[in-house]
């Protein structure tokens, strides 16, 4: 099962290497990894999507916690949470299909951010279902490039 693990770390040189090195050194998978500063510039948040059985996920959490630069680890999958990912999709367009593509983009509430005579680039934000949905719909037109940010997540409510 996929787990989204949210990790607060000291915003220091080498932190990313320590975290990613832990995953590679112990043979854990990283499906996606997203890093950015928090409201406190001294602290960064990493959102890591990984998979494995419960034992592995438990080890991942514990091993992350052992890193000195890690402040907090939370498996948000266990909580009521919201996940989002941003994707840029460049689609090839043949004459006459532009309308159909725009219609799909509209339905998924995407945004067209670039057009050229032969391509349309779409920005779409959403959870996994939505992203997979639009990707499937656009595939027949010829997806030239697909760029994903990796997931970010936040727990609902006050927690």
């Amino acid at each position, binding site marked *: 099962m996929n787990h989204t693990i949210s990790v607060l770390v000291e915003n220091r040189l080498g932190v990313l*290497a*320590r975290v990613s090195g832990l995953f590679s050194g112990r043979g854990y998978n990283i499906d996606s990894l997203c890093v950015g500063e928090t409201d406190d510039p001294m602290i960064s948040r990493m959102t890591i999507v990984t998979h494995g059985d419960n034992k592995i996920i438990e080890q991942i959490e514990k091993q992350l916690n*052992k890193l000195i630069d890690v402040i907090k680890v939370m498996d948000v999958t266990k909580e009521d949470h919201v996940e989002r990912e941003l994707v840029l999709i460049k689609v090839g367009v043949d004459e006459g299909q532009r309308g159909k593509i725009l219609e799909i983009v509209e339905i998924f509430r995407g945004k067209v951010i670039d057009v050229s005579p032969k391509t349309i680039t779409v920005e779409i934000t959403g959870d996994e279902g939505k992203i997979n949905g639009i990707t499937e719909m656009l595939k027949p037109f010829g997806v030239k490039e697909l760029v994903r940010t990796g997931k970010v997540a936040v727990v609902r409510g006050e927690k």
Partner: protein
Amino acid sequence: MKYTGAQILIESLIREGADTIFGYPGGVLLPIFDVLYDAKINFILVRHEQGAAHAADGYSRSTNKVGVCMATSGPGATNLITGIATAYMDSIPMVIITGQVLTTMIGNDAFQEADIIGITRPIVKHSYLLKDVADIARVVKEAFHIASTGRPGPVLVDIPKDISTETMSSPNYSKKVDIRSYNPTCLGHPMQIKKAINAIASSKKPIIYSGGGILSSNAAEELQKFVDITGIPVTSTLLGLGGFPGTHPLFLGMLGMHGTKYANYAITNADLVIAIGARFDDRVTGKIDEFVPKATVIHIDVDPASISKNVHAHIPIVGDAKCILQQLNKEAIPPKINDWIEQIEQWKKEYPLGYKKSGKLKPQFVVEKIYEVTGGNAIITTEVGQNQMWAAQYYKFDYPRSFLSSGGLGTMGYGFPAAIGAQVANPDMVVFDIAGDGSFQMNIQELATAIQYNLPVNVAILNNHNLGMVRQWQELFFNKRYSHTSMTVQPDFVKVAEAYGAEGIRVETEEEVVPALKRAISSKKPVVLDFWVEEEENVFPMVPAGASLTQMIEGMA
């Protein structure tokens, strides 16, 4: 007044209580060595940086203080790697200072540049690259704190040359450490303690499985009290030896691959396993599915990641072994286990540890005599291989910190420099490195260090003219195809010792053993004892890798 980074570094080390640095100089360390020229700190110049790391490790294991070693950038730093990894695997508190090229040169493939922070990342508890002279005092303070608290381990501090020459006027030697992301747990959770007390009280076949954590948390006294109260027998891992008296009637010796039969039977049949500061290593558990099949497991460990990693813990207790044993000792109710103790006594009688005498000198005999002659009042280090296992089996370790051995990494070449470190820290103790002829040659150059600093360490080579442990596996599991394990060419160890200015004694018969040991102990010089032992002797009992603990091979028959 202005202070250089180098001055601040050394002052910081002294303020942390470091009295000795094991190290080796080099270009980028020159400003630091200039300070060391007349600093109030002992410096031991080793002959290879690996020796410095192991010596700092031996210093630490024999005292429970933080060991300190130092090496130059590039090759000096990379030579430390095996020593750092050894300390990491066995959770030994160490601070490693490495020189680095100028901050402006880092990343340029400068002369003697190595990304030592990157190279050591998986084998340190933490590391720092200093980039500002103003950080030195704080970083050194943090390094000692991190190395020595929680689950201890090595911490590396990389200091570029320009940082050691930069100056500042009022270094900030703060008294306390504040790392918001690092707060190791000491006390066990009261609920878990309660559960453990109940499980202990109602157990019928309990056993304590104690590990190196007893030593790192200084909990030997508390463990003994716990056993006094509960009457529960104790088996120990290799690293736990000395954490509970080897001569105590409730001690079952080491468990696992080369453990005693009775320890392995006892733990397999136990209904309650109390693991304290041990991590269920595969050399201990054998086939994991058949390890402690009937038991409730209480696992006490300061590192939450060790708990339920290999074996499920029914009652996990995170915290320091000493604190938790104190908590348990307040409330423990002794279980009724007379039948169990009787059963164990039966096993002890039925399956004693032993070896067959032949006409030739036996390595086990040598170890027994080292125990008798020292009365157990010695620090024993070992190399890796058969020598290590015989030392663990046939010497009775009654005192904490009397047995220093590379358990997790299994580093040949550890024992001799570790003995040097232990001797530096304990000038009045008798120190023996129980060695193999292969292992000793891995850091034999440190004889010069021992001579230079008048360290009367003793090396007892159990010389079987083979890489014995590997040869044993080839004999047992590879059809006696002895592929490259015979050391047909070997130096004359007596002459080597003498060439360095040490004493060398060759021993080939049983009668010569005790006089030679006595001679070694009374000598003020380092002594290399070259015991020519039975070449094909094997370590038994033995649980083949991957077999269950009760499937022991026995060599006596």
